[in-house]
């Protein structure tokens, strides 16, 4: 297939994610974050936060819908059966706490063939309900075994 390089720069409608206390605790348990600020509302309040704090990598939870939406976009034509995650980068801003409403936008930043593999790169930008940046992400995926034709 021809690479849809004309879709570089494409953006998707913002996705809004309401952060729940139990979701933070569920995520923290799954990744082994046992710190009190991530799990105990009283400890979080004592430290000056309004509720439990999300571990930094919770960004994958509030960005998941945007990322999955782009991967499944027929205009990009990504072969999901051969998709692997190649690289990932996050830069964090304001901490996220339970009750926050995070709005994420996603842009396709690159589509290229390298050594016979297709590489796609996406950038997410996430803001809280006050318009403060919580995280930017650069998501790189590789489609294995797909030759350019």
């Amino acid at each position, binding site marked *: 297939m021809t690479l849809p390089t004309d879709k570089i720069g494409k953006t998707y409608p913002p996705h809004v994610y309401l952060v729940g206390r139990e979701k933070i605790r569920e995520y923290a348990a799954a990744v082994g974050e046992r710190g009190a600020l991530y799990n105990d509302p009283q400890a979080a309040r004592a430290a000056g936060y309004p509720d439990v704090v999300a*571990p930094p990598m919770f960004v994958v939870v509030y960005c998941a819908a945007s990322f999955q939406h782009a991967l499944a976009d027929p205009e990009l034509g990504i072969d999901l059966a051969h998709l692997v995650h190649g690289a990932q980068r996050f830069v964090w801003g304001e901490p996220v706490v339970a009750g926050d409403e995070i709005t994420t936008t996603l842009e396709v930043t690159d589509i290229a063939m390298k050594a016979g593999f297709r590489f796609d790169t996406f950038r997410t930008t996430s803001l809280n309900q006050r318009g403060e940046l919580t995280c930017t992400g650069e998501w790189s995926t590789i489609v294995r075994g797909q030759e350019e034709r």
Partner: protein
Amino acid sequence: MTLAPGDRVTLTVTPDRYLTVRYAGASGDFNPIHIDDEFARSVGLPGRILHGLWTMAQVARAAADAAGGDPRALRSCSVQFRGMGLPEREVVVSGEVEAVTDGLAILRLEAVQDGTRLVRGGHAEVRVG
């Protein structure tokens, strides 16, 4: 918490048999290669594999813990994913402080399981002091 160039950080964690199922639910990534052994084998994998972003979360945790574990400590983290990780085998994250400037420590990290590098080129910036 003070960090100096050359300081080493280590984190070991053994994902249990059903970790990938719990992480799928927690993260929303239900790709069957992570939760269905039969499917994973049908696409040439040895069995269901760890989520790369779970492994990255261990790298991020190792870096943030080195800075005292404050939720605001981690400024950035980047990784390249390599080998496939499996449940029920120890994952070792190790890293070294490369530099400390203006209250920001730069760490280089990797994650290894049974001699296979799951993450290479890990890089994190943490706020210190």
